[in-house]
């Protein structure tokens, strides 16, 4: 009868339909909102108020962006502040994580075990709890409302994960290389700099990009430790300035969304290879 053959063929077809259905539904959920924002940012403010909404711009315009670039200079102050804070925190995180990661992975003493537990444990607690206390403590030492205070607090929050991730990259470097260098009479410090560290540069890149994305995303630290408008970062600035009274200018809000996201998209897609390797290395290892 050929019923069995038919059966497996229909099953394969059904499976294929199911696969595509899942793919299309989930991808639409993930990507359509992005399209929607980009679309609105190119609409006139009038058109963004049309109901039912239009799915293609009737008259594409750059008005939203021009408006943002000409009338809202403070947006670019927030932007610049955010770049400074994220970049400083990232550099600091990388610099500290590379040495600590090396120590935890390469110096085989049992203290490392406790240090890792200490770091992972500290990471688990709510950020608000630290901030309640940091608010008073930083004020006491004159670091409230300063970029230094903000950068240090953010760096601390980012360190535990970065260090453990960095250690896992050091773990992947074979011991033989180092031992060969020792036999050649190279000292521990110079072996560290000349042999081991160059081999973990891709890992360092992953840690750096991850920290940059994470610190760029910060809202809580900046909203509590900074009250001076001239020092605000993007997240807090945007929330305070454009989400309240101005939230009726949707073409502007959507332009802000696009401009605020673009650097992250570039950073991610440019370094995608390292990022994915880094993130999955951390998780697969545990």
């Amino acid at each position: 009868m050929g019923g069995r053959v038919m059966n497996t063929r229909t099953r394969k077809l059904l499976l294929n339909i199911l696969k595509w259905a899942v793919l299309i539904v989930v991808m639409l959920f993930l990507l359509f909102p992005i399209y929607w924002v980009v679309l609105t940012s190119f609409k006139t403010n009038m058109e963004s108020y049309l109901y039912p909404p239009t799915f293609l711009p009737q008259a594409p315009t750059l008005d939203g962006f021009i408006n943002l670039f000409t009338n809202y200079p403070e947006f670019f102050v927030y932007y610049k502040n955010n770049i400074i804070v994220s970049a400083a925190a990232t550099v600091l995180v990388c610099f500290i994580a590379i040495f600590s990661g090396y120590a935890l992975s390469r110096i085989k003493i049992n203290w490392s075990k406790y240090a890792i537990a200490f770091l992972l444990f500290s990471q688990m607690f709510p950020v608000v709890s630290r901030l309640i206390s940091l608010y008073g403590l930083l004020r006491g030492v004159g670091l409230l409302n300063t970029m230094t205070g903000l950068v240090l607090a953010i760096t601390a929050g980012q360190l535990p994960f970065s260090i453990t991730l960095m250690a896992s990259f050091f773990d992947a470097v074979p011991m033989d290389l180092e031992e060969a260098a020792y036999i050649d009479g190279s000292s521990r410090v110079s072996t560290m700099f000349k042999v081991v560290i160059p081999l973990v540069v891709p890992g360092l890149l992953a840690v750096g990009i991850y920290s940059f994305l994470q610190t760029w995303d910060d809202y809580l630290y900046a909203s509590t430790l900074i009250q001076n408008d001239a020092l605000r970062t993007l997240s807090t600035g945007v929330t305070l300035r454009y989400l309240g009274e101005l939230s009726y200018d949707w073409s502007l809000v959507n332009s802000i969304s696009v401009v605020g996201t673009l650097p992250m998209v570039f950073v991610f897609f440019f370094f995608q290879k390292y990022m994915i390797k880094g993130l999955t290395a951390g998780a697969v290892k545990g």
Partner: protein
Amino acid sequence: MDRKLTKRGITERLFWCVLIAPSVLIVTLFIVVPIIDSIIKSFTDYKLANIVRNTAPEWNQFANYIKLFDSGILTDSVWVTFTFVLVTTTLSLVIGMSLALVLNSEIKGARVFRSLMMTPWVVPTVISALVWIWIYQPQYGLLRYLVNIVTFGRVSDFAILNSSKTALIGVITVALWKQIPLMTLLLLAGLGNVPTDVLEAAQLDGANGVTGFFKITVPYMSSVIKTSVSMIMIDNFKQFPLFWQMTSGGPNGSTTTLAVLSYKEAFIGHNFGSGAAVTTIWMLIMILFVFCYNKLFPKADLD
């Protein structure tokens, strides 16, 4: 020889200390000390005035805790937090796993989809909130339009964030949108570790796709599933900006999580002692939760 070894041991330890010192110092000063300090302050009457006038807060006989429990807001927010964390994490595991399985099969364009799907993950959280506030906008929003079409015009003014019944669903949707990419990425890496020959052999023995998935794929991936779920779960526990921007905890406290409650108490009401009491209870819950999670799903042996 023996003496030389111990001498080397000492230098090793010293070197270790030098390398690790900066991170331990920063983490201690900016995380550990503040946490302990906030636990202490949760037992005191600690308000903005104490900070401004630089006066020491006074012990207040558990008043912060008593007030929180008596008013019932604390238990409500624990409930909201758990609902949010459990629903979001479960859905993101299920959807992420489905997408990962599809992308892992030989489907056309898998590589392109893999990289495109990461986009929501790189959108800053605050901007994710903006994106979805616009979609949810009660008058001109896309969601209102879609709901109107799907219900054939019966529901014509759907405003998801304005009703205490649906607001949490609205925030959960955004949280999922933001975290499904990462979940999928991690699970895809785990799927790469599942040996295809074992799966094929099982299929030859007559196991169907579903049995193969639960009997072979899941066990092989157990450690990846466990770490990615706990990573995402802790992130969900800490979620603050989405709630703050989209609902500020409302309407009617229906989206007031522990994070929102503690922030409101401390930085809006300027009652730092009360805020610290909320975070202290939150920490206890976290410790208990992680403990139970580790008991329920013991770590698989990796080596």
